[in-house]
């Protein structure tokens, strides 16, 4: 533990090697969701998983969790609103949620269903940022409760001893 609030250097360095690959993979799964297995839900959870890994390896104070965490709730809302906006754009093609973007007649291409790609991207933002915001809240609350400590019932035999940070995962 060379720095506070993280795991051993083995985990930290492996995380630094892997994080970029996890993010690219998550986006690829989401963007090609209309052609191959995957989609916005799967890709969003993969991205959340990458950021959860980074949070566990570096702690919540440094690294990606710190600079992405404060954006997470905003991006969550942006994803939901983007989905709605894309749905409203469907009116341009006739009705709510219609495919408004032009299509490449050739199948098995990224461009063969552009509006589905964009909707997948919106879902990815929504799911990825939302779940990561939830995870950060859960992770941060444990520490806040330990620091603030007690209200009147909390001494009923619960193990309050300091857990080694992040070690258990």
């Amino acid at each position, binding site marked *: 533990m060379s720095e506070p609030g993280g795991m051993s250097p083995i985990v930290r360095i492996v995380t630094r090697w892997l994080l*970029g690959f996890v993010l690219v993979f998550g986006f690829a799964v989401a963007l*090609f969701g209309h*052609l191959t297995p995957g989609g916005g839900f799967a890709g969003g959870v993969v991205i959340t998983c990458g950021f959860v890994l980074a949070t566990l390896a570096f702690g919540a104070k440094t690294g990606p969790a710190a600079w992405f965490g404060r954006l997470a709730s905003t991006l969550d809302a942006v994803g939901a609103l983007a989905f709605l906006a894309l749905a409203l754009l469907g009116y341009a093609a006739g009705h709510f949620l219609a495919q408004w973007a032009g299509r490449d007649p050739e199948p098995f291409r990224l461009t063969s269903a552009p509006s589905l790609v964009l909707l997948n991207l919106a879902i990815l933002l929504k799911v990825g940022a939302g779940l990561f915001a939830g995870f950060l809240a859960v992770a941060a609350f444990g520490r806040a409760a330990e620091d603030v400590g007690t209200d009147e019932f909390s001494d009923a035999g619960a193990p309050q001893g300091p857990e080694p940070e992040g070690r258990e995962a």
Partner: protein
Amino acid sequence: MTATAGPLVAHRLGRFVSLFVFGALLWLAVTWSFDAASLAVGALLCAGVAWGLRRVELDEAPLLLAPLRLAFALAYLPVLLAYVVRANVDVAWRVLHPRLPIRPGIVRARTTLRSPSGRVLLANSITLTPGTLSVDLVGDVLYVHRICVPEQDPDGATERELRKFEFFIRRIFE
């Protein structure tokens, strides 16, 4: 670590380019789609991820772009596999032996590698070979759990075994 010796801008550019190249390779492998739109989206995505992770990526990553180091990295895989198979046979022999000749314990071994990635690769290689397990890495000291600790000079014997891995890892990362 030759990259750190250069000017700061070139250093940052090297990290960006390496992450971009690795990301693009993964993108091509996953999507396997070569029309213009897919390539453009992939390039944009990889550039975005490389820029977003510019403070996370390691100094050693650009080194892997050099062909010779990459060749050593590829050559390391079968070597590691050979050690893993040999260690597997050894552990299987110990388990099946009626007298169970094991002496479990933790030894501490000093590595001569200097780059963090190299040390971590060494620790993970040791963990991959059955019978030995890296417990922790503190500075240049590696704590290794062995299924059968040698009778005399356990630390030195372990270090001599590390040297075989270090030969390759040094040529990959240093």
